[in-house]
């Protein structure tokens, strides 16, 4: 899978309360969640999304609440991939479970700039920054996790395992 998109860059500790505030948790509808995604962090997010579909952030992305609505709202907004120095534990699990690509990479996070164009090859395990010409290797994903992603998320994976 190859993702070729431009970058929206954010800082450290992007928490689930700014990704999708609890006041909007009265719905599981993806379009409604997407409408309020990042609204408390960046009022220009929607505008930026028109031309950019990869988020690059610092440490501890997705810290805070266990709400799965957070990765759902990001995915439903059209974001294809999140690269961060580190991810908060529950967010990371949730993203994989719903099939949103997440890549932890300190090197990529430190070197990629806001607005850069990336070509990310998930199979080869490589991030290429077209704007700066730099490339970054991605740590291989454990087999177990790859199987969840290739099944299209945790529900499908479990159904497959249970033969239902």
């Amino acid at each position, binding site marked *: 899978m190859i993702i070729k998109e431009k970058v929206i860059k954010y800082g450290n500790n992007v928490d689930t309360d700014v990704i999708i505030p609890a006041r909007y948790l009265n*719905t599981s509808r993806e379009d409604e969640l997407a409408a309020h995604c990042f609204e408390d962090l960046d009022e220009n997010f929607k505008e930026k999304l028109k031309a950019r579909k990869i988020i690059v952030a610092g440490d501890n992305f997705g810290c805070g609440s*266990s709400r799965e609505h957070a*990765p759902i709202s990001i995915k439903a907004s059209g974001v294809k991939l999140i690269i961060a120095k580190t991810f908060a534990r529950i967010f990371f699990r949730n993203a994989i479970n719903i099939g949103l690509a997440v890549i932890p990479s300190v090197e990529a996070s430190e070197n990629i700039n806001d607005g850069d164009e990336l070509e990310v090859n998930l199979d080869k395990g490589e991030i290429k920054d077209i704007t700066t010409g730099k490339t970054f290797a991605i740590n291989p994903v454990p087999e177990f996790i790859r199987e969840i992603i290739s099944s299209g998320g945790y529900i499908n994976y479990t159904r497959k395992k249970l033969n239902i």
Partner: protein
Amino acid sequence: MKTITEKILSSHAGRDVRAGDIAVVDVDIVMAQDGTGPLAVSQIKKLGFSKVANPAKSIFFIDHAAPSPRKELSDSHKVLRDFAKESGARLSDIGEGVCHQILVESYVCPGDVVIGADSHTCTSGALGAFATGMGSTDIAVGFALAKTWLLVPQTIKVNFNGKLGKGVYAKDLIIYLIGKITADGATYKALEFSGSVSSGLTIEDRFTISNMAVEAGAKAGIFAADETTNRYLGQRGRAECFKEIRADEGAKYEAEIDIDCTEVEPMISMPHTVDNTMPVSRIDKVKVDQVLIGTCTNGRLNDLKIAAGILKGRKIAEGVRLIVAPASRIVYLEALRAGIIETLIESGATVISPGCGPCVGIHQGILGDGEVCLSTQNRNFKGRMGNPDAFIYLSSPATAAWSAVRGFIADPREAL
């Protein structure tokens, strides 16, 4: 030689597991709340299930928006009530209290594996259980199969030694620790709390500390199950579920952190991150508009008692709104019988129904633009209390109560 985490997860995996292993484990207790529950229900259905594997220990809590302030949330509540009926799962409806408090009061036993669709599920670690938060999809599979997969975490041992000073409480210790190791200082790890101060803490104090383990990114925050745990379970009529749980001598820890509690002062977390900490004695004068005493962090009987001790015979400052939310119906009744609620109301407090209250920004005390709230809750992220243009500070109940009297963030040692 195993850590508490390795012991509990080994006993639930049916084999010996160590930090770094991926294990499929049996789950004793599964829960979701009204924010995360409706999505869990739709995922259970997508999985093809209409029943839960272990109905007596599968619980849906209505606590985050209870009673419902909006029709959309009322519909979410209806989804949970209907599914509980259909599946046989337990329902904890409005007025019963915050999920984490009810779990420790009535469900969790030492040695259990507990998973919940709420990040503060780690609270139950105070009873010597392995308890962790997950998202709705993970929890849906947990409800359906009473199993989950886990990466067995490394453990960081935190030794609280020394002596707690006047006006310094469990909340100050955990804020101090998070300030020291930062908001991601324990990501993916289990914290195991040890040392002479930890053994001497009341069970309520342990709940406060375990509750905030996730604010350092931790997967779990665990205390040994000891005589204090045994006494508590006895008081709750659950003596039969007690068993002693402690780490083996020589268990392998990724790191040890020593905290000399004698040096810890009353602490504050400042906007907008929990690890932005400072001793109360060193912050500039910050005027408060609202003070919240309650939540799964500090809404228990002793918390209300400490606040009432400071507020007795005093009035809250003009222009301050003091909101008190008992963590559960049991806490509320005990506080009523002890005269604590009367003292709080006489001082000017507004007492709301047991539950999450305004902590998560849905109802019962949403902040106005530019307003400041000092709260005993666990999280002060931007927008947390319903308004991204407001400012949230965190403290112990003593600091919160005394600040409500002064009208600005104030050192509780002045009142003691």
